[in-house]
């Protein structure tokens, strides 16, 4: 009985074991949040994620660029929500759930991005992130840190947050 339990535990351990992350002298471990958008899995550095908020309702704004989904109420605070698919001009393929908002923030900027599903958190080494061949991705290189062995596309949160071209600043008429 005892042996069997042990055997079972070992088996489980074998199944769940992962390759240890290779840490080289140059590699930095990044804590990321992974999420899906249409058919792809993305990751974004957790240090820039304030929270994940369910999207139950939103208010569209007239006249804004199409990548602005609208604004939502996050516990009494107004939060703009960006549809990255539109911002990156990704082909409008498939119909996702798009019912999660990942709220990104740094000192100067704060907004939510739409996600189909949030998978969880992971620690990845910057060494394991390889640049994406430009032909593969339609997303501008500047917004990407690269892709991992598991084909997770790692977004550059800092770049997104400091990108002036995302800021909506419409002059008067």
């Amino acid at each position: 009985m005892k042996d069997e339990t042990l055997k079972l535990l070992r088996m489980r351990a074998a199944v769940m074991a992962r390759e240890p992350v290779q840490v080289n002298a140059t590699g930095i471990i990044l804590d990321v949040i992974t999420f899906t958008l249409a058919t792809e899995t993305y990751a974004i550095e957790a240090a820039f994620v304030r929270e994940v908020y369910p999207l139950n309702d939103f208010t569209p704004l007239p006249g804004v660029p199409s990548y602005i989904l609208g604004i939502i109420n996050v516990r009494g605070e107004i939060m703009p929500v960006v549809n990255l698919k539109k911002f990156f001009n990704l082909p409008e393929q498939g119909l996702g759930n798009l019912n999660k908002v990942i709220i990104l923030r740094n000192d100067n900027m704060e907004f939510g991005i739409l996600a189909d599903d949030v998978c969880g958190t992971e620690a990845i080494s910057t060494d394991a992130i390889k640049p994406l061949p430009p032909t593969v991705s339609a997303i501008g290189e500047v917004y990407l840190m690269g892709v991992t062995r598991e084909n997770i596309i790692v977004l550059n949160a800092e770049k997104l947050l400091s990108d002036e071209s995302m800021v909506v600043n419409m002059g008067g008429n």
Partner: protein
Amino acid sequence: MDTADSEFLKRIQATYRIEAEEHLRAFSSGLMELEKTQTKESHAGIIEAMFREIHSLKGASRSVDQKEMESVCHPLENLFSALKRMEITLRPASFDLLHKTVEFLSRLIADSGKKQSPADLQNKRDLIQQLVLTISEAKNTPPGEEQVRQTDIATNVSPADIPLRTSTPPEPARELKLARAEVVKIPISKLDPLLFQAEEFLQTKISLRHQTNNLIDIVSEVNEWKAESVRRRGRHSMSVDAQWNEWEESDASHLNKLESHLSAMLHALEKNHHNLERIANDHLDAVKQLLMLPVAFLVEAFPAMVREISRNQEKEIELMIQGSNLEIDKRILEEIKDPLIHLIRNCIDHGIGTPRERLQHNKPSLGKITMTFSVRESGLVEITVSDDGKGIDKTRVLASAVKSGSISEEVAEKLNTDEILSLIFLSGLSTSPIITNLSGRGLGLSIVREKVERLNGSISVETLEKEGTTFRIILPLTLATFRGILVGTGDQRFILPIMNVERVIRVKAEDFTTLENHETMRIDNDILPVVSLQEALGLPERRAVVTRSSLAEQGGPPLIRIVVLVSGQKRIAIKVDEVFDENQVLVKGLGKLLRRVRNISGATILGSGTVVPVINVADLMTSAIQAGGRKTASDSETIPETKSAKILVAEDSITSRTLLKNILETAGYLVTVAIDGSEAWARIKRGAFDLVLSDVDMPKMNGFELTKKIRNDAGLSKIPVVLITSLESREDFERGIEAGADAYMIKNSFDQGNLLELIRKLI
């Protein structure tokens, strides 16, 4: 003006007294600290701080012309400057002198404005002499002296004893007066969270009112139920079934109990609501009072600024300010400062000419700029900035606007005076032929307009050639008080700021007349352009939405809801589908990402938690005029009226739901949405739909169950059902077909063309 000036002087004096007392208190406690502290390192810090205090005190005294104070502060400052540079050190005797000086200064502050007695004057001269002496003496003393002081303190004297060694004992009453200050200075950073909390209270209050109204609805529903059950019992009173009667009675008693519980609860909630409402309002008012400052604080520096700028341009200009005792929200004062400076500079630069030019036009060589502050109506302040200069040259404005490409020449010809003048608020427009460091870059006035509008205010300009120009700004007195009207257009709702709403009316279609291809209507004696809110905002034209109110009006000719908006001198009639209630709302920013959105100034959260954008009326007016022009072009190709097919979309994800709805509506279908299977079922039973498009994975009732229900209902079984899902397995596909779905679409391979083609085939 005289009384206003002396009023102002009094206020400045009072402010000075508070400030001076503060500096002196800080200086005095520094002195105590200095006596207690032994290490040289900490001395340096204390001396530095004390030096700054005395320096500020001297500066403040000089600015309000307190010569006595200044004359004592001056040697004191020199002494500390020498200490700072470590040229001298303090001896016990110096401490006595310093305490005596502090005491003298505090008396001077308390008596400021009064005449000094000869004894005081003598006292002052003595102090100054001794201070000067201390510096020169200390400089000649060998460094060894320092030791004496340190042992002196370390062995016996407690700091509190030291003042007792002064030759003249201090007057305790004076000391008390300083300590018992009735005014406290609080950093604004501590007030801001207070205001934020007070405003959050407001949000709770709004939610509570919403909940109270919901409960009122529930109570009335229960009452109806009760009445119905009484009626029913009345009809069946003949029933002989004893068991039945018992049930009926038990039902009735439960219902009574429920009703009385609910009524009690409603009563309690209403009471709490009223209490909270009162507290929240009082609290907010009190906090806002904290933030009210007289205009004097804002305009203090303006006259000097005008003198300097006009001197640089070899002009003679005097600034008159009226109403500077009016109190305005500090945050508004801060925001309006730059715009006012812009306007003043504009008057100096463009309005008022050199003395020679003025004399040529039979004007006094001294130019005049007048700035007035007055309360317009409740909660609104009017600020005017006027000059008696040459006025605005309209032909030059027009030429400049055409040149900069702001307007075309055809448009330019049609503009009336007011419209021409409003051009000066466009960016890139300047009538000044040369660019100075003040104005001429053509940005100033557009920034002024922007700032004013961000404060929910408006700006207009009037001018008389050769007589002068007046800028008129209307602003709310405080920032937080904001009332708005909730309106609906299509399926979106917006808040219109009440300060821009002149009236809300209902008119018939025949009240409109078309003038030069623009729809207009007569209000009072003005012809106002009429534009629908939907068009002005550039929202996609939707087919008429059947609303509660338009249903109620069926039978008579359809009435159209018009909101007359006013901004500055401009008025416009805006068509909306629905006008809900007027509300106190809390306006919030749109977030850092949305720095400026045309037509939208912010957003508010309704009691139900829904976010509603707040309209920027000045923007909207311009957008409306442009939209009106566009409309006539597209109006010629009116879409033939066809009976559109009705589709029900059941989908729990808001984004997918909105996307599907938009795709289908653009294709010309009438779309109703449901957020889950059970809501969809309820809607299907009520309305006649031509097709149902449903997600599979939904709460309450999933797509398979919904399909089965439809198929099993005799009246509905023929409705085509399209299931749409992320489930891809063969098994699910079979389940869908089994349930009776006509088609099955996979989300991942979703394509709008395929969907529309499929729907066309099925309907």
